């Protein structure tokens, strides 16, 4: 066990995986000598050399496309997209190729690729250094989508992702890259993809969230606790595969649900969670499902603190959910 930050946990996972398996290699922009603009790959080029920590030209379509080619050939590439906002030039490679290669080839060509990228707001990054694009990927059949919220999960989920035979989009909440340190198991620590985690058990209202939204959700849960309201906080962690059983179990218990994410609300990931409840837990629901999310605007700069769900908005929704019905 070591106390490290989330970004250090990412670094540790990469280091361990590369040491364990010579087929693991990294590619991306500024990941080598520079160690990545967030230092997630710091020191790795020194340990593993430029053949395994590959600084690429400025082309995300090239990065993802080359990673696919490497995977077809038998390597296990981990591609970094410098900011998730810059993944769209690679969207064709991701949606048309990465997600569909196994399927279209009848299982002949799996794509053992991880794409990791810092996502989300809270660093005053404006429209193009703040986006949460998870819904696009979660909607794309053939991709797994994973988002850790703490150092231990970051290491455990990333390790699982690197050794998973399917393509995984691994989104890192850059806002909390260094916000807190946490205990992280040494060695080959893996958290299986597809399982949610109960961050805080509770009985009155279920709150579903992931990534950088977990800290304000926990803060809100503590705030309402003081008012005698017990919120169960569930960190979804893996959006695909989704741990539907955990979601349903919680709402069957509480009868109330609040869903929190940073991305815009409309057709966001929260819509799927709400839909799941409307389909499979309708009779358990005592009050309307609530979504606390980014607004349906592009991500702002000066007003980002008002845009991002905060503990107060979340607490407000928890209270309203508990009050009604």
């Amino acid at each position, binding site marked *: 066990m070591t106390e490290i930050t989330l970004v250090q946990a990412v670094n540790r996972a990469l280091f361990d995986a590369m040491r364990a398996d010579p087929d693991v290699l990294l590619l991306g922009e500024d990941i080598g000598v520079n160690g990545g603009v967030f230092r997630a790959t710091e020191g790795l080029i020194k340990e593993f050399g430029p053949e395994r920590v590959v600084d690429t*030209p400025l*082309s995300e379509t090239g990065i993802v496309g*080359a990673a696919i*080619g490497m995977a077809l050939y038998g390597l296990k590439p981990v591609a970094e997209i410098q900011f998730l906002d810059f993944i769209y030039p690679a969207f064709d490679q991701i949606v048309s190729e990465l997600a569909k290669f196994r399927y*279209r080839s*009848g299982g002949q060509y799996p794509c053992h690729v991880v794409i990791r990228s810092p996502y989300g707001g809270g660093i005053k990054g404006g429209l193009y250094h703040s986006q949460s694009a998870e819904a696009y990927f979660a909607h794309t059949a053939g991709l797994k989508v994973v988002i850790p919220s703490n150092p231990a999960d970051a290491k455990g989920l990333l390790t699982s992702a690197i050794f998973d035979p399917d393509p995984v989009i691994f989104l890192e909440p850059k806002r909390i890259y260094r916000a807190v340190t946490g205990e992280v198991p040494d060695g080959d620590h893996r958290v299986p993809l597809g399982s949610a985690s109960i961050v805080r058990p509770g009985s009155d209202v279920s709150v579903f969230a992931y990534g950088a939204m977990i800290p304000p959700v926990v803060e809100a849960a503590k705030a309402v606790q003081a008012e005698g309201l017990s919120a169960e906080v569930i960190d979804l962690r893996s959006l695909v595969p989704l741990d539907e059983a955990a979601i349903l179990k919680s709402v069957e218990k509480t009868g109330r649900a609040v869903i929190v994410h940073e991305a815009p609300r409309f057709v966001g990931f929260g819509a799927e969670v709400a839909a799941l409840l409307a389909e499979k837990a309708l009779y358990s629901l005592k009050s309307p499902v609530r979504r606390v999310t980014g607004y349906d605007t592009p991500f702002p700069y000066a007003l980002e603190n008002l845009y991002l769900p905060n503990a107060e908005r979340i607490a407000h929704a928890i209270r309203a959910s508990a009050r009604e019905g």
Partner: protein
Amino acid sequence: MSQAVELPKPGSPPSDAGGIPPEDLPKVYRAMLLARLMDERCLSLQRQGRIGFYVPLQGQEGAQVACAWALDPSDWLFPAYRELAVALVRGLPLVSLFDQFIGNAGDVLKGRQMPNHYGAREYRFVTASSPVGTQIIHAVGAAMAAQRKKERIVTVTFFGDGTTSSNDFHSGLNFAGVFQAPTIFFCQNNQWAISMPRERQTRSKTLAMKASAYGIEGVVVDGEDVHAVYRAVRDARRKAIAGGGPTLIEAQVYRLGPHSTSDDPKRYRTDAELAEWKARDSVGRVRQELLTSGGLTEESEAKLLESLRAEIAMALKEAEGTAPIDPSTLFDDVFERPTPRLDEERAEFSKFLTEGVLKP
């Protein structure tokens, strides 16, 4: 709209004069004929509704066969949708092609793709997709992987003139240049991208010269001359294996048929242009060469045609006799193992099939 195709000047010879070895030429001709006969057969099968769609290759047999002939079975190929002759030289069995065209239980792709998008890992012939150009950077990534694994192979990627405008032509050639990937970019400039003539696709004089924008070598060859193509590919392969980096080869050919069975080329091009190119057709040229050298006679050719037709007919019969694809395969291969959600969908689907809500 007549095409001003610049054939390579006779005064710019490749590094060595030898073309396809004379003893190979009959086999090359056989492969070219097989491709052409398959093509004709498939066009008629499509008209009869026995296959749903088809992309013909006539006019490009010579370039494809010669290119494939210069390669090693260990090389990895990243085709587009028009590479029938490459597939044949590579060894993909006719029946497996028909299985794919039909999408039956024998199709290794499990009926997932439109005709012509076959692929077979066994032959290092990677399953194509439809969006143009995406395979180009895959070939480069695979070549970088081969470099890393110190395996002495090349990757070859196939694409058309129109595809030089794609994003991944740009990323692929640039990465290949920077990393000196052992990749051959085999561009069949068939003069048209559906209705878009070559000279309105891009203003560069040749497509091959685009290579210099990436610091790599570009070569133009007469794609209807099998010897020229063979030499260019062989040289590019030797160079790549020796660590000399990638090559862009532009083989100037012509798409004699429609873009696909959904296309009507009469809407956008002239008979005169077609006639001009028909006269240059590689099939006729190799035939003439063999007739002259005695490698072929009218009689032996008749026999060859007959046996190839029989081969095709037999394969077709087998494929048409194969069972349709099992519906429950629909949910396979999204992931290595299905997610709970997919299992649930498959269960509902099976129930629907049993109850007759869905009818195969």
